[in-house]
């Protein structure tokens, strides 16, 4: 006897009816059970089709997503490298606290931008942190100066700092070593007796001023004078040659530029050998940005906006291209696989169930593409770093961060979800009669 109502026949005996028997006989449609079985079916079928020849469109989709995610991961790794200055990562990491709209590109030439106030107090607060090696406000101002021997005014960039005790940082490419540590004029409550007048000039500055070491420099409109105590080569460029720049004590520059009121400075340099200190810095000064770099304005300029822009651009481009590519290729796959859809429909699958199976197939392909793309992208970062190291002897530009893997996978899933409407729409348009030529 051919199977007919077999389960019922079995159940007519003394054996207790199992849940499964009841499911088959009553067509129980538990939502959770259906989702589970449909998911397993869709995923298994997708994996089977990837293993079998003749599923070029699915393979093509996977490769497309993999390439998009790999490129995004690689670019993101490089962007991450730029953001954290991987090229100069060493024991020392410098952070610059700048006003919220501040831009390291402009501070060397702009004098009217937003400044930070009460800088001595904030700086001393920062230096109390054990993880911070030193901190100094930096005030930069183009100032007219002249030597006592000449009457012609020349403009040089004066940079006011608080030379740290025990450290000899280079600011504006000029060593602070020769300056008296601390800020004696400020510490003496701006007593003229404490005025040091110390000035470290760049080679370009002494050339412009036609001055030499030990010479006195005056600033028109003030009674204060500076003495060139050291001359050093500075790499600071203006675009037409070396910039005439000189280092002085912060409070003394504030005194001659009117910045003493409010104790203002352009920015604050914080040096630390602990990258975790960044979060501390970010919370200490309101309405400021913390940027990372190694020098001073004009030299190896790098702001936080570039890596962020790179990362966002890579994400958006990957998402758009990946979505368009996946929608197109999976759309072709659905058109080619109409018979499968029609068979499911004929045996009683609802449009929603078929749509779910199709959606899961697309997302599964994208997920596999995302995993493989992330790994390829990580490999790409490694290759770039290796290539630059071997050919140009450059340090690593990209960072291999394992968080890039979940980032890539999540982006791939987003690609899958965003590309769903087209293949699902195509599946809904499939009619049994047309697809099966009934």
């Amino acid at each position, binding site marked *: 006897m051919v*199977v007919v109502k077999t389960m019922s026949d079995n159940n007519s005996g003394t054996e207790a009816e199992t849940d499964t028997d009841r*499911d088959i006989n009553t067509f129980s*449609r538990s939502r959770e*059970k*259906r989702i589970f079985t449909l998911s397993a079916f869709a995923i298994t079928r997708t994996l089977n089709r990837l293993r079998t020849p003749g599923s070029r469109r699915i393979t093509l989709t996977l490769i497309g997503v993999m390439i998009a995610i790999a490129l995004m991961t690689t670019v993101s790794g490089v962007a991450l490298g730029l953001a954290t200055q991987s090229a100069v990562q060493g024991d020392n990491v410098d952070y610059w606290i700048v006003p919220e709209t501040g831009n390291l590109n402009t501070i060397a030439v702009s004098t009217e931008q937003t400044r930070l106030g009460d800088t001595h107090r904030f700086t001393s607060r920062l230096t109390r942190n054990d993880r911070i090696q030193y901190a100094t406000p930096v005030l930069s101002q183009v100032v007219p100066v002249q030597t006592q021997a000449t009457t012609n005014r020349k403009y040089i960039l004066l940079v006011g700092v608080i030379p740290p005790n025990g450290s000899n940082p280079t600011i504006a490419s000029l060593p602070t070593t020769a300056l008296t540590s601390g800020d004696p004029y400020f510490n003496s409550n701006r007593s003229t007796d404490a005025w040091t007048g110390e000035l470290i000039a760049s080679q370009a500055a002494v050339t412009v001023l036609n001055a030499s070491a030990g010479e006195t420099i005056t600033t028109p409109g003030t009674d204060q004078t500076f003495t060139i105590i050291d001359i050093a080569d500075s790499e600071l460029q203006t675009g037409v040659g070396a910039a005439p720049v000189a280092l002085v004590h912060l409070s003394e520059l504030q005194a001659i530029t009117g910045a003493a009121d409010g104790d203002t400075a352009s920015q604050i340099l914080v040096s630390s050998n602990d990258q975790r200190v960044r979060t501390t810095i970010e919370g200490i000064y309101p309405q400021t940005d913390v940027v990372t770099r190694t020098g001073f304005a004009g030299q190896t300029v790098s702001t936080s906006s570039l890596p962020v822009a790179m990362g966002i651009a890579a994400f958006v481009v990957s998402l758009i291209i990946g979505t368009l590519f996946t929608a197109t290729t999976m759309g072709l796959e659905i058109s080619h696989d109409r018979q499968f859809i029609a068979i499911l429909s004929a*045996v*009683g*699958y*609802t449009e929603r169930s078929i749509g779910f199976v199709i959606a899961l197939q697309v997302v599964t392909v994208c997920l596999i593409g995302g995993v493989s793309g992330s790994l390829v992208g990580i490999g790409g970062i490694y290759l770039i770093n290796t290539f630059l190291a071997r050919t140009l002897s450059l340090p690593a530009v990209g960072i291999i961060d394992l968080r890039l893997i979940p980032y890539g996978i999540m982006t791939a899933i987003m690609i899958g979800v965003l590309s769903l409407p087209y293949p699902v729409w195509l599946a809904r348009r499939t009619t049994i009669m047309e697809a099966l030529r*009934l």
Partner: protein
Amino acid sequence: MTADSSTEQTHAEPGSTESIVTCESVSREYSRGQGGFRQDEIPTVTALDNISLEITPGEFVGIAGPSGSGKSTLLHLLGALDTPTSGQVLISGTNTEGLSTRQRARLRAKQVGIVFQRFYLLQSLSAQANVAVPLIDHGIKKRDRHNHAKEILTQLGLEDRLDHKPGTLSGGEQQRVAIARSLITDPDVIIADEPTGELDTETGARVLDIFETATTDRAVILASHDQAALDRADRVITLRDGRRQDDE
């Protein structure tokens, strides 16, 4: 009967005189081309014209007629794949008119088994998995689905072909797998469109044996050009130009 109540349908009792499939003055027209600006200018073709019939459980009904006579259209309507332009089709008491595509799918899932001329098995799945496909959308566990499929395939003489892919099966074996797939949800009616069309005489006869046996519990409606198949039917409905010619 409302559409929603279709989910609560019980199977018709074998030998019951209550009809399991009923057509009342059913017509089906298809539009041909886009027509002009006015809706009434769209030309139509009548595939079925005023067909009425009743089929009871245990009946093996053949549908005969030349190509273009409306056999396939009638099967579509009886299998809830389509709805009539006018008239009513009732399957296990459920009127298919006004059912959404989702409700018709559910009706097919529970009350209708469909067998195609070209088998239409999923090539990437084994015979056992193919038979179990309809149960996936019911949320039944894989092990239980496969056990049930194995049970049916064994009774159809395919116990040694469970793990074979369709490509490695003969035409007769593939059709038996397709029949097993149509039986797994224990439907009230099986619709078969030229099920022996791709098979040799001997294999076709074996397939017809299965259909004959299946009518013990349900109705089998088989459209065919094959006289040998029609000879097995309890009665034959002959169509010509969309109209019913006789009911032997």
